[in-house]
């Protein structure tokens, strides 16, 4: 019996596909998410919209909250650590969380280095803005990738930008002649072996979810049609006026993402979505996606 293998780490992400992972800060949120059909929850002290509003340094959540949520639901529980903060990650592994998100939503602890994720038994998910960034994280041991988007904005534009960049990167590598792959790897700053693998297979070696700005069922289905394997919804559910109904609607739209009639039906009477932010109004130093490299 062998635990913590690459198959087992990437395999859990495969089991989450076609599903919705919801940010939760209380036991009630976690139950609501489970009842709505979430495939996992992200246990936090504050949703990204509140982290953004509060400013200051955002850190790993209090283990009391994470443990309480792990007890309250039977679905997988994820938790965030700061970029490069491998001791927060060690603590999360010790708590027994099912996935660690090395996340730009928290304030980075290291501006040069991400965590060496191969050294952990718990699997990691990491954010990316393009294919090069995705492959650097996979090289370090991320068993799942999510496009970053811009968390806490309720604005899907950055999530779309990042998903298109990843998919475009894959299409380009597939049509790149073999003798140019090394130069491509150099230009992308990505491990050559992964670049060569994508050239051959035409797909990422791990599951890729969309994150950062999903607020409606149509947003979720949009990301799925752009090629996401599933979606993270952060502030979009519990900052809306009717979280129970919206959560169910986003779950249904993610499953039936190619069925416009179902998407239209589930989009009815959801109440107010979370208030959105125009990315152009956010000062450059307050953007979360450029954190990490």
């Amino acid at each position, binding site marked *: 019996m062998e635990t913590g293998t690459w198959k*087992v780490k990437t*395999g859990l992400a*495969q*089991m989450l*596909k076609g599903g919705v992972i919801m940010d939760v800060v209380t036991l009630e949120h976690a139950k609501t998410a*489970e009842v709505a059909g979430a*495939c*996992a929850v992200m246990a936090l002290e504050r949703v990204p919209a509140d982290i953004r509003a509060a400013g200051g340094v955002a850190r790993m959540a209090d283990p009391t909250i994470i443990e309480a949520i792990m007890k309250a639901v039977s*679905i997988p529980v994820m938790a965030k650590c700061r970029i490069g903060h491998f001791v927060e990650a060690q603590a999360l592994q010790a708590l027994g969380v099912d996935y660690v998100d090395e996340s730009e939503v928290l304030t980075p602890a290291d501006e040069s280095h991400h965590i060496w994720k191969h050294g952990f038994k718990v699997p990691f998910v990491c954010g990316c803005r393009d294919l090069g960034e995705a492959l650097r994280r996979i090289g370090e041991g991320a068993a799942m990738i999510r496009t970053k988007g811009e968390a806490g904005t309720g604005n899907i534009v950055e999530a779309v930008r990042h998903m298109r960049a990843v998919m475009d990167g894959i299409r380009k590598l597939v049509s790149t002649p073999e003798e140019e792959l090394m130069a491509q790897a150099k230009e992308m700053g990505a491990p050559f072996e992964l670049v060569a693998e994508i050239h051959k297979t035409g797909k990422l070696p791990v599951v890729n979810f969309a994150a950062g700005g999903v607020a409606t069922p149509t947003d979720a289905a949009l990301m799925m049609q752009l090629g996401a394997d599933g979606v993270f919804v952060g502030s979009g559910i519990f900052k809306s006026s009717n979280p129970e109904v919206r959560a169910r609607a986003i779950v249904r739209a993610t499953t039936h993402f190619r069925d416009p009639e179902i998407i239209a039906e589930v989009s009815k009477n959801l109440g107010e979505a979370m208030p959105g932010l125009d990315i152009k109004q956010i000062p450059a130093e307050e953007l979360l996606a450029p954190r990490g490299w």
Partner: protein
Amino acid sequence: MRIGVLAAQGAFVEHIARLCRLEVEALAVRLPHELASLDGLIIPGGESTAISKLMLDYNLTGEIRNLAKNGLPILGTCAGMIILANATPDLEVEPLGLMNIMVRRNAFGRQIDSFETELSIPVLGKKPFTGIFIRAPIIEQATSEVEILAKLADGTSVAARQGKLLACAFHPELTDDLRFHQYFIGIVTGN
């Protein structure tokens, strides 16, 4: 031969890919009308709570129950095994109640306890089969109509067959070994 793979949530693409390698026509099933004219159905791994709710929301639960009672062969892997079962102590999942097995979800603990191990599965031949167990369930009880196909070294039951229904706690769809899928296709064709 057409095999449907329930595509509510989970690793359905992996099952479809394995069926294609065995040159079987495979299609994703999300709505009841897509169950028509299938020769077999696979309920994949995923989150059993999410799959169970989406099955109820879109009226798949009753339809699949009827088809199974009329002899449709079904394979359930991991979450799919929970859904085929008679009972689970968990209130968030409504099983189909088709197999006389009682299962326990997340029986080995959390993700850090997920594991790979070599299994002896006599119906697949002498060569061991790699069992990938991810937050896996186990079969806690089974009646005499149920044939247990595989056990862990400690005696825990992890695969079973009852007539044309087949279930396992691990993920044959995550390996390159196609023997478990071939065995299911054998049930479908009656060989």
